[in-house]
């Protein structure tokens, strides 16, 4: 069935309030300013060279789930950027609502379509550009906008106040000392080998992940630290709302914190989009060619710990398990082999998904989509039935997903489609099955 974005309008307080402030003239003025200031050769080339072949349709999990052509990557561009350019920005407020709904909630910026387009057109970039326009117009979904506000006010995505952060680390240290009396979460240690960085959902909701990481690092005997100041969170929803200025400020604080602590590198928890923010997005906005301090994702760090023998497994996690490849560290950083080596080292039996590695389907939560909150929850669950089929076909009951957003997205899909699977972080399994010599 063929629909258009107009047929699936969703009410959202942020979007409604945003368009209520607009007129076509205001819209045109803003869009022309954004295009003049930021629209360069990439946008121009992509729009011009696209031959409208439709090959990219099958790349997109939304299309594969709905089989509705209006969800194809190129169709998203047609319903947004092409129209904007065709009308030189003179479009209606309602049209901007549609643009926002497509760009924020029907595209995860997963970049799978680049594996389908012979011309290498980066649809994720075009959707990011549409988001930038929507941000400049003040038309952003309420919940993700609130997260961007939190970033600006606290330098983390969940309104965690300065003291709450330290308090949480102290609390987790205390908890973990019941299990390993000598355990420390070393704060503000200048010259440590690495700074461990987590995203705000960890101190807010998933404190056991901090506990587990601390336990693993203490058991491994590594020289690490965590900051006791803002700059600890490298997650970045401002990057996804299109607020590049706040995006830059967050990562400036993050890198400056690591530089202040004189660490050799930053090791980060199992998050995908935060890696994207510091690896090839915000660092560029700040003028750095690459990240000024190397950032190592947990997948790679666990791989190092296992390969160097710093941690050993007492047993393997009973399998079989399957592996979900998070876009931002697989298509975004090529960690697919290391991820497999880690999983094979800690689990009994792996059943691969099809397709996998760089070709894996997105969880449909990433790119800020899950952060758009309840109004759009169904969009990303129904829009990823293909993922449910993919998971189901493995026939296994455990899925390893080394990414926070993937957990959120897959969890909803598993429930909705009754897949009866459990989701695990690598850290969950390593903590559960490792040798715990330091434990009391």
């Amino acid at each position: 069935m063929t629909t258009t974005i107009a047929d699936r309008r969703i009410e959202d307080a942020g979007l409604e309030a945003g368009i209520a402030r607009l007129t076509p003239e205001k819209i045109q003025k803003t869009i022309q300013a954004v295009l003049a200031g930021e629209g360069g050769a990439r946008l121009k080339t992509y729009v011009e060279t696209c031959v409208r072949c439709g090959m990219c349709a099958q790349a997109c999990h939304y299309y594969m789930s709905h089989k509705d052509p209006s969800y194809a990557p190129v169709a998203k561009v047609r319903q947004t950027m092409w129209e904007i350019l065709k009308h030189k920005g003179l479009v209606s407020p309602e049209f901007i609502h549609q643009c926002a709904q497509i760009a924020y909630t029907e595209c995860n910026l997963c970049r799978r379509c680049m594996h389908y387009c012979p011309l290498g057109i980066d649809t994720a970039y075009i959707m990011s550009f549409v988001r930038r326009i929507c941000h400049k117009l003040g038309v952003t979904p309420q919940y993700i906008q609130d997260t961007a506000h939190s970033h600006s006010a606290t330098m983390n995505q969940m309104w965690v106040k300065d003291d709450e952060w330290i308090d949480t680390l102290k609390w987790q240290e205390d908890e973990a000392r019941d299990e390993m009396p000598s355990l420390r979460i070393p704060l503000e240690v200048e010259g440590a080998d690495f700074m461990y960085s987590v995203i705000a959902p960890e101190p807010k909701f998933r404190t056991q992940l901090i506990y587990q990481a601390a336990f693993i690092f203490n058991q491994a005997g590594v020289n690490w630290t965590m900051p006791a100041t803002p700059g600890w969170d490298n997650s970045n929803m401002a990057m996804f709302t299109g607020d590049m200025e706040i995006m830059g400020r967050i990562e400036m604080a993050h890198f400056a914190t690591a530089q202040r602590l004189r660490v050799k590198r930053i090791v980060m928890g199992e998050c995908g989009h935060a890696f994207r923010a510091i690896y090839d997005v915000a660092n560029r906005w700040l003028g750095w060619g690459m990240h000024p301090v190397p950032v190592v994702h947990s997948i790679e760090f666990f791989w190092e710990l296992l390969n160097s023998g710093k941690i050993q497994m007492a047993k393997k996690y009973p399998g079989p398990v399957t592996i979900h490849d998070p876009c931002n560290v697989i298509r975004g950083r090529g960690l697919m082999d290391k991820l497999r080596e880690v999983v094979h080292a800690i689990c009994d039996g792996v059943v691969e998904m099809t397709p996998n590695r760089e070709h894996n389907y997105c969880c449909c939560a990433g790119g800020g989509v899950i952060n758009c909150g309840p109004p759009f929850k169904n969009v990303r669950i129904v829009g990823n039935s293909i993922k449910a089929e993919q998971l189901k076909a493995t026939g296994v009951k455990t899925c390893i997903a080394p990414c926070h957003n993937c957990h959120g997205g897959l969890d909803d899909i598993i429930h909705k489609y009754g897949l009866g699977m459990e989701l695990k972080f690598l850290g969950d399994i390593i903590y559960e099955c490792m040798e715990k010599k330091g434990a009391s």
Partner: protein
Amino acid sequence: MQADQAWDWEPGARTVLEDATACAAPHEWTEEPEASPDGERLAAVANLGDGRFTVCVNAEPWETDFEKAWYLRFSPDGRLTAVTMEDGMWTVSVDGESWEESFDFAWGTTFSADGGVIAACIQSEGTYGMIVDGTPWETLHENANNFRLAADGLHTAAAVQVKSLGQADIATFQQGIFSVAVDGEPWDAIFVNCFDPAIEQKTGRAAATIRRSLYDYSVAVDGKAWDAAYDCAWGPVFHPGNGQVLAPVRKKGLWGMAGDAGFVWNPAFIQCHHPQFSADGATLAAIVAPSFGKFTVAVNAAPWSATFPVVTDLRVSPDGRTVAAQASNDNAAFRVLVNGSVWPGVYDMAYGPVICPATGQVAVRVEKDGRQAFVLGGKAHPETFDRAFNPIFSPDGAKVLLRGISGKAYKRIVAPVSAFTG
């Protein structure tokens, strides 16, 4: 760090503590040590077992012990501070004496330049502010961050939340809920965001980067915002001579330096941050990127010719004649930059250049192959350490105090400038 003539400046090495991890009380472990500015004391938090902590100074424990003790820092005048907790309440302890008042949380101890004033951040019953030498702000706020203590210690400031915000209430946030509080009292003006407040010495005037809407960045001084709007801005600085406020700002994708009358450095940089004045205000330096991925230092708007992937730790001498920074590539291959020239040494880590206020000479603590050492004017001192502390020049600049731990021993070395021969 200002050196004192009264310290022991007799050239030579002295082992202050045979075992840097020692603690005379029975203990489970000691934590990362801190050295006093004069080098005569080494302090560390010690875990006494049973969930009790204290602080050891030259292996001697404080008389008091705590449920928690951490963030051990020496003030520039040599007093030793720790953030401590007892009965679930937090405060700052100075040389073993806890401040009278304690709070639901206390953290982030800071010092005035001479160390005479000690301040920290506090949270009491969910309200936030600062405490200065044991006296908390009279007014606490729903939230506060970006805490600052003026260099002369006379005033404190922070970005404070002055209006309540419901869950996911994006409209109220965008109308503005933040201000800047000086000594606890907020400006009348309210903004969407307030970042990086700066306080002028003596006068206590405060300036901060503000966001008036999601798109409109500017600078406010004592609550009054500049008319001009920019696409982005970093934290402001006060001209030490005439009180003018300047800040790096972004316009049409490029960064420059602006005051309330507009640009003083044309927006010609891909990036521009960490501006710093000399004491007389005649020299203004900042870290800049003349082109993408290429960073250097600009002095009075003129960038040095040598560029590097990353530049950090900008320092300007009081007389403005010496400007130093460090460069790195992928957080390795650290180089030291002084007045546009590059020292020959390449290091695994550098800890920020230290400029002698008297002579303008530059010394840096560096690390190579796991050993830390000191380099002055590009030449290394022969001694190396497992872990060291930043160098301090003697008041006349003829000697440098080196402090570090090698093996188990904590040593203090007074090295004449001529001893740097490497």
